[in-house]
């Protein structure tokens, strides 16, 4: 599991790469939170290269979004492939974390 982060204007952009399973979450969760929560910036998370998502990954996304929300920031996901989308839809995650198809759409949602 790999992760990159950058700023696009005032928005934090985080790119996740690999499997958000038990092992992957264990490897990336601390860095993921540290890249997003402390500065409280609105954040978009690129899931394009996430090949697998299970409940541990959902838990990480909820926990980080909640911590960011307490600092006044918003988090938007984008780019989920079919398998990842299946899990997101099954858990109704989009009821609490917005999901966009593209980076441009995500930037619009996080700014809105």
């Amino acid at each position: 599991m790999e992760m990159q982060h950058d700023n696009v204007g005032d928005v934090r952009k985080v790119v996740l790469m690999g499997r958000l399973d038990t092992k992957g979450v264990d490897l990336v969760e601390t860095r993921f939170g540290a890249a997003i929560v402390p500065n409280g910036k609105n954040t978009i998370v690129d899931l394009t290269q996430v090949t697998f998502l299970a409940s541990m990954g959902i838990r990480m996304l909820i926990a980080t979004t909640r911590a960011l929300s307490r600092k006044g920031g918003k988090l938007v996901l984008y780019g989920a492939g079919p398998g990842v989308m299946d899990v997101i839809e099954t858990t109704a995650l989009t009821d609490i974390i917005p999901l966009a198809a593209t980076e441009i759409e995500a930037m619009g949602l996080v700014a809105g």
Partner: protein
Amino acid sequence: MQGREHGGLRSAAIVNGKLELVLNNTIAAIEDGRSRMLDFPPVQALEAPVRHRLEVIFEELVANTIRHGFTEHSCQSIHVSIEQRPGAMELIFEDDGRAFNPLEMPPPEPFSSIETARIGGLGIHLLARLSADLRYERLTPTAPPSEDRAFMPTNRIVVSIAV
């Protein structure tokens, strides 16, 4: 401590067209078992979204058993059988851990806000929603445990995934 000394996978074999895995009581069993499952030709032939569901179900059940069903550092084990059936892939999970019936778990509360969203408990929900059929059986060991006893399962979960 045999279960701790051999990584996650104790054994793997294809018997009468079924893949049979024996997993140790360690989190490494998730990754080691999954890798072996993906090498099984009927699994390789699945379309990607179906294979993803199979992997999710495998991960959630094995992780749940190791975290909640087993005694830490014990040599308890999970025996998994994977077989292609007409229109479905069937997985049978047997373990010698504490009783756990996923069918008795209440569905999680719907999300209403990020502040109140439950962080845990989604794995069993995923298991139930992604499977076409889910059955549980509590098994009664036929002999008292002993050091050299054969595996005597106490839980059996049968999961089918539509293909």
